[in-house]
């Protein structure tokens, strides 16, 4: 199994380390040709405007859209924003996940927070969520499943088939359950082909 991590900007190394701990080799993707032969892709946290601009300059937008049609993709925080259909800002996004997202929905850095989460499909007790200038999913399309809401009801994890997105950062914790969860999506998809 080969899983890529979009390495334009952000905490891609943290995702690579998490994948390494569960025995999956990660490929850094900075140019379109590196998408070839990948079974899945993680879009890490970072500044979504920076990532969008670099993806445009290096002609990654269309190849990524094409990739996401059939191959599992997981976006965390800025990655979730980059996958969304509507982010309310004039910035390049992939638009592959049918949802409306509000960037920095919880406020500025002083409002960044941690909270324990109950995530649908994740066994073994609460998952510790780290939210940094995090986005919020305001609205989802009919086929998108809501996997997690924080205590005040706001949506922070969604899935639509092979596309998965979280507003928080599992890669900043030692808990590998969501990386396992994504790898399971990748394995399922590979088996079905």
């Amino acid at each position, binding site marked *: 199994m080969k899983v890529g991590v979009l390495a334009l*900007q952000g905490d891609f190394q943290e995702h690579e380390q998490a994948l390494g701990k569960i025995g999956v080799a990660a490929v850094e993707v900075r140019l379109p040709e590196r998408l070839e032969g990948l079974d899945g892709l993680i879009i890490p946290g970072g500044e979504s405007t920076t990532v969008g601009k670099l993806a445009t300059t290096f002609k990654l937008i269309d190849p990524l859209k094409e990739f996401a049609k059939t191959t599992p993709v997981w976006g965390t*925080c800025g990655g979730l924003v980059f996958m969304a259909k509507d982010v309310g800002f004039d910035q390049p996004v992939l638009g592959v996940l049918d949802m409306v997202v509000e960037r920095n929905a919880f406020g500025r850095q*002083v409002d960044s927070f*941690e909270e324990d989460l109950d995530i649908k499909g994740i066994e073994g007790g609460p998952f510790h969520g780290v939210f940094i200038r995090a986005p919020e999913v305001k609205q989802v399309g009919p086929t998108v499943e809501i996997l997690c809401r924080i205590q005040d009801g706001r949506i922070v994890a969604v899935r639509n088939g092979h596309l998965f997105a979280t507003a928080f950062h599992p890669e*900043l914790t030692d808990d590998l359950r969501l990386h396992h969860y994504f790898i399971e999506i990748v394995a399922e998809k590979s088996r079905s082909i």
Partner: protein
Amino acid sequence: MQKGTDTVKRGHAQMLKGGVIMDVVTPDHARIAEDAGACAVMALERVPADIRAHGGVARMSDPGLIAQIMESVSIPVMAKCRIGHFVEAQILEALGVDYIDESEVLTPADEQNHIDKWPFKVPFVCGCRNLGEALRRIGEGAAMIRTKGEAGTGDVVEAVRHARAVIGEIKRLTTMRADELMAYAKEIGAPYELVRETAELGRLPVVNFAAGGVATPADAAMMMQLGMDGVFVGSGIFKSGNPAKRAKAIVEAVTHYDNAQILAEVSKGLGEPMVGIGVTELPESARLAVRGW
């Protein structure tokens, strides 16, 4: 829900990795930086080259200006306070800036003590010239480190010196036996627990950017190849002939720092770089990097 934790303070810097943080003095600059792909901006009244030229006491910028810059972009906004000036830091926290740079570029307010950064909800970045200085700042609560370089010169030589010093000392640390770490901590004046943690990790426990003298895409890529996590560019962009183009090129160079083909491409036709001052021409009294204890 817990706010202002160590994890979210350090974590924010992790989101900036592989990116470029640009000094801006107006909302227009900030928008140019955001359009070029900056991962954050540093809001200032004057870039370091002008602080140098202007002389006198350099202080925290007008909060009104910082607020305007915060309103003009969607990316994180940092701002500088003087070394040891905890009230400037309280003001910046109240403004809601995303990061505070306790910076040697401004005139120090305290010649012995840096700010106790732990009680703040807003994270701090601090400068260093070597591992001891970096670990002292982390010991005081800094959630991000930048090697100092020599700000406002456009000369990368000090940025290289400081990056190599930090990385070289960490390498040395990783080869030491456990029983040598206390003596080493004493030698470099660093907290023992952080020395041990750094030896185990083989890197600083927080994100480490380069700064001070980066003026070209090649400079930025060099700092990345040396092992820095990202780059601050101060005067190098808005003191150059074509800021928008140069800013974009530096962002691209940081992403593709080890791809010489792309570096060659993005370095073409950027116009005049900032004029710059050779650091060797600077008298000791004009050096900013020596500020900090």
